[in-house]
């Protein structure tokens, strides 16, 4: 093959394969992309939550985009513990100040970053959250401290609309 000089016909074959491959890819893409979130899923609006009834030390769980969101009104003790942790002790170093702008309120996706279970409140070796599925321990800032989960629980985009209402998303 290699010592044969390329002919006009070889060029035609190569060009045909190339056009065919581009055509096939163009047809496959819509078939693949139809599985991505559709317009109605993406259009899901933000959620507003009334948190006036929450006492310090209480957590509520609300559903946002099909996922649970934890809203915890933390006690002073929990805030102090979360803020005194040294960065080098953390698996995924993040300052509590960055995770909870208003230290009293911790808002995060209640989804374990290992395989997506919902961790249990007030449990685990760090008195934060504990995931029953594969044993990940989170601290009072929702940061991963022990177990197979690679990251801290994710803090979504949220804001206080007024003193009593949090808007997630």
């Amino acid at each position: 093959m290699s010592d044969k000089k390329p002919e006009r016909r070889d060029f035609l074959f190569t060009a045909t394969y190339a056009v065919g491959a581009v055509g096939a890819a163009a047809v496959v893409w819509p078939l693949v992309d139809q599985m991505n979130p559709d317009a109605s899923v993406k259009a899901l609006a933000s959620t507003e939550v009334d948190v006036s009834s929450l006492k310090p030390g209480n957590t509520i769980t609300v559903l946002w985009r099909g996922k649970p969101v934890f809203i915890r009104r933390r006690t002073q003790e929990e805030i102090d513990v979360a803020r005194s942790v040294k960065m080098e002790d953390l698996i995924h170093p993040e300052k509590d100040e960055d995770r909870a702008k208003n230290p009293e309120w911790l808002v995060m996706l209640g989804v374990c970053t290992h395989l997506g279970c919902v961790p249990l409140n007030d449990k685990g070796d760090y008195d934060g959250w504990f995931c029953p599925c594969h044993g990940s321990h989170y601290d009072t800032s929702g940061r991963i401290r022990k177990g197979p989960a690679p990251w801290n629980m994710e803090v979504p985009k949220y804001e206080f609309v007024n003193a009593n209402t949090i808007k997630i998303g």
Partner: protein
Amino acid sequence: MSDHEYTPKSKVGKWFNDRLPLLTLANHLTDYPTPKNLNYWWTFGGILTFCLITQIVTGLVLAMHYIAHADMAFESVEHIMRDVNYGWLIRYIHANGASMFFLAVYIHIFRSLFYGSYKSPREIIWIIGIIIYLLMMAAAFMGYVLPWGQMSFWGATVITNLFSAIPFVGEGVVTWLWGGYSVDNPTLTRFFTLHYLIPFLILGLVVLHIWALHVPGNNNPVGIDVKKPSKDTVPFHPYIVIKDGFALLMFMIVFAFFVFYAPNILGHADNYIEANPLVTPAHIVPEWYLLPFYAILRSVPDKLLGVVAMLSAILILAVLPWLDTSKIRSAVFRPLYKQFYWILVADVLILGYVGAMPAEGLYLLVARVATTYYFLHFLVILPVLGLKERTIPLPLSITEPVMGGSPNMAMAKKNESKIE
């Protein structure tokens, strides 16, 4: 295809066969020469075919009554159980049928491991088998999601999240699989579609599996080549048909026991609670047939490496024909391999047990030791053993040990001298 020319007796048969040689195929299948020393461990191929057909037939019926929608799936399954005529029976056969299918496939796989059926010239049969096994796991997992109970929902969440371990694109892949930001209605409808598709892919692969089998013919308990047709073989029909049929009958008794007396024993009570995205059940455990791999996943403390270890545990089987360096097929003539074989069986059972237990303390330690041993078996023990092991001499033909009463030539000779 056949080892001899075949001509249909009737004129019509001949006319048809000249145009589409289906009768030649049927003749090949009935006359197919089979080693006469096949034992009952060889009947699981037929049993597995029965399992596949059972799942397809009961699945078709269930699909006539089931509604693949997040708001209605759970109720439609209860509707099948309570309202549909014999719906309870058909659903219990389908649900327990999955377990029976895996029970049979595990026996079938371990039969291959013991008698070296994966070795040359049967590597392609083996690899097709591994692909079928992977598709079976995918079908079983997606089928378990369809009732939309708590275990369905959280099992789906955990398993799809395995893909989030892929570096860089993992999160995007998971969103793509879900069709949203969590397991929800789009996930359910696509799982239903794929659950319906996969059994037919398996059916196609089974045809290739049997086709590839019929090229070299069956392996046998002695593990040496047979001359066919010869005194070493019997025709598939009626000899193997009757033997397979009897074994199938025994298997159906076990099957019927589960369906009629313990239909929920292999399931989880949590799956009779409708899916709730806010609460994860305290103990998430996969179905029993996935437990050994689940134990391997949990025994590795790193997310990505855990997933890699779990997948490797399955895929390592595909390269087994090249990891096992021994030319001797049957464990009957490999005294050391035989012992390691049974240690592997125990190891997999232990992995299955710890997979069902919480991943902590002693269970976790045992899981780690058993996981390490699993990989040692395939990556170190098998390659080394093939080079070092002193095997027992093979008999000259499969007829020899049958006539001599022992599969071992030395023993057969001793028996001969006794007779003299």
